[in-house]
């Protein structure tokens, strides 16, 4: 530390997307971030829907119609997948924080479980939703 200041010493490079090959682990990590951002956008719609539920009836019907349009349904199905993926992968994160599941085989197994679980839960939600609607 005596002679070389941080600016002169070569700094380690972060694992750059164009240098490292995509792997399940890195894909799942970026998906957690992407779904977190998508869900945050979804919170705007959630607040809009709740405010409409507390407001005038005709306006609530308008919001219902927007969410029930085909664009609305596709968006809701997309947010369902984001929610279930982020939720299951979030549990995976919390288990890592607790010190569980750090061996590479476990990382791959839990990763696959998250993917399968998210797809199954999303399909279940779509089936239930289609039945109720």
């Amino acid at each position, binding site marked *: 530390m005596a002679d070389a200041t941080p600016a002169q010493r070569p700094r380690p490079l972060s694992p750059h997307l164009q240098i490292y090959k995509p792997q399940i682990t890195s894909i799942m990590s970026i998906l957690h971030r992407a779904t977190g951002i998508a869900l945050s956008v979804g919170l705007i719609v959630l607040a809009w829907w709740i405010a409409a539920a507390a407001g005038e009836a005709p306006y609530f019907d308008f919001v219902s119609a927007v969410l029930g349009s085909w664009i609305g349904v596709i968006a809701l199905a997309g947010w369902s997948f984001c929610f279930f993926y982020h939720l299951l992968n*979030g549990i995976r994160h919390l288990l890592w924080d607790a010190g569980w599941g750090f061996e590479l085989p476990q990382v791959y197994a839990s990763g696959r479980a998250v993917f399968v679980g998210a797809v199954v839960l999303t399909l279940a939600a779509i089936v239930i939703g289609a039945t109720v609607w």
Partner: protein
Amino acid sequence: MSSKTKSLRTPLGRVRGLGAAKEGVQHWWAQRLTALAIIPLGLWFVGGVLAHLGADQASVQAWLAGPCTGTLAILLLVALFYHSSLGLQVVVEDYCHTEWLKIASLVVIKFAAFFLATLSIISVLKMMFGG
């Protein structure tokens, strides 16, 4: 590193608040705590929304106006908007390296989260007490 420039500030005064982690632990812990809360509350709410797809306003209000359901909904909303703003803050800090743009983005995120949280919580309260 010997400091040759004269300064009236003590070494402690110079380093205070400059640690790499700053408020990191508090942020990290709140992100996990809100995540934990959203697991049961979020699943409950998604189930409730699925059951009310296409329902009219009166039945949605009847669902959320109860003392238990209203309370759970408000707790969920607090956890959701807190968790989301903490998460988006990390994303901005990771990718945004222009100081003024970073600060501006953080202000927008925090204000938006506070506004939407207040709007939706007041709406639930209105359904509970509005009659």
